[in-house]
């Protein structure tokens, strides 16, 4: 399947460090995660970020499937993490 990732507007997980820290109350970009689709494991800073859309999307740099979706409204933050096999929160 050919996915148009619009790479010219692409960033990476580092660009979402602020919103991730807001959600998890800790620095997350150096934290490992695993892609539920292909098993890629890497720091969240290495994920591909798409931010020019109503929500924020993080994709796997290996298979390019969606790992995380974040939608912010005035009242709440919605987090869809079904593309991640795990997230790691340091104790």
């Amino acid at each position, binding site marked *: 399947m050919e996915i148009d990732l619009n*790479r*010219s*507007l*692409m*960033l*990476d*997980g*580092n*660009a*979402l*460090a*602020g*919103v991730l*820290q*807001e959600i998890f*109350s*800790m*620095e*997350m*970009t*150096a*934290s490992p995660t695993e892609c539920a689709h292909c098993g890629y494991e890497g*720091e*969240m*800073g*290495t994920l591909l*970020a798409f*931010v*020019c859309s109503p929500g924020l999307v993080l994709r796997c740099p290996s298979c390019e499937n969606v790992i995380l979706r974040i939608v912010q409204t005035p009242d709440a933050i919605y987090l869809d993490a079904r593309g991640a096999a795990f997230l790691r929160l*340091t104790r």
Partner: protein
Amino acid sequence: MQRGIEWQAAILKAIRLETPRVKTFTFTLPDWTPHRAGQHYDIRLTAPDGYQAQRSYSVASEPERVGEIDLTVELVEDGEVSTFLHEGLVVGDLIEMRGPIGGYFVWEAAQSEPLLLVGGGSGVVPLMAMLRHRAAAGSNVPTRLLYSVRAPMEVIYAAELDELVRASPDLKVLLTFTRAKPQGWEGYARRIDQAMLGEVMAPLSSTPRAYICGPTLLVESVATLLLQSGLPRELIRTERFGPSGGPA
């Protein structure tokens, strides 16, 4: 490390023109905490009707500077935040920001491996924080900065890079010009390729830790070339600079 991040009102202390399209803004922070070189701050602008725009900018200054930070910002065409910073700000203004943020693209002077920094355009900003931190901390790890710019007038921090090189025999800065080169230039004048990376890395005695920051295409191409040349993936850190500095 286990903390949320609060917004604070930073005070603009100074503006410096770096290139025709790049300015450095010095902000005084009421709630300053030392950053790690490579980290960034989020800036949030709020319009009278409540509309908000938010972008993330790398810190350019070294963490040894207490109470204030430099953010170097490139003016982006139609960029709502960079345009306001460049054209709407005067010294003394208050700006909402939060940080320092990020923990992946960071370097600390205590790390002892040689350092390979590769920057494209304004992607040099977090790398400059690393070079300034390296100098302030008295580190002498062998370091190479390979800095790709389109034209001579777009070189950010040109004079200070010269000074840093003069002050540290273990630091070399190599420029490559991709569109227009200075008259009489005998250095690199092409996009970064395997041969160039090989020449830049050859004098380093052992495997370097690499930090690559710039536009996506440069970052991906350099990271791929470094992997092909045998550098282990865990020694390569990347940060992509978007056309708008990156919403957060």
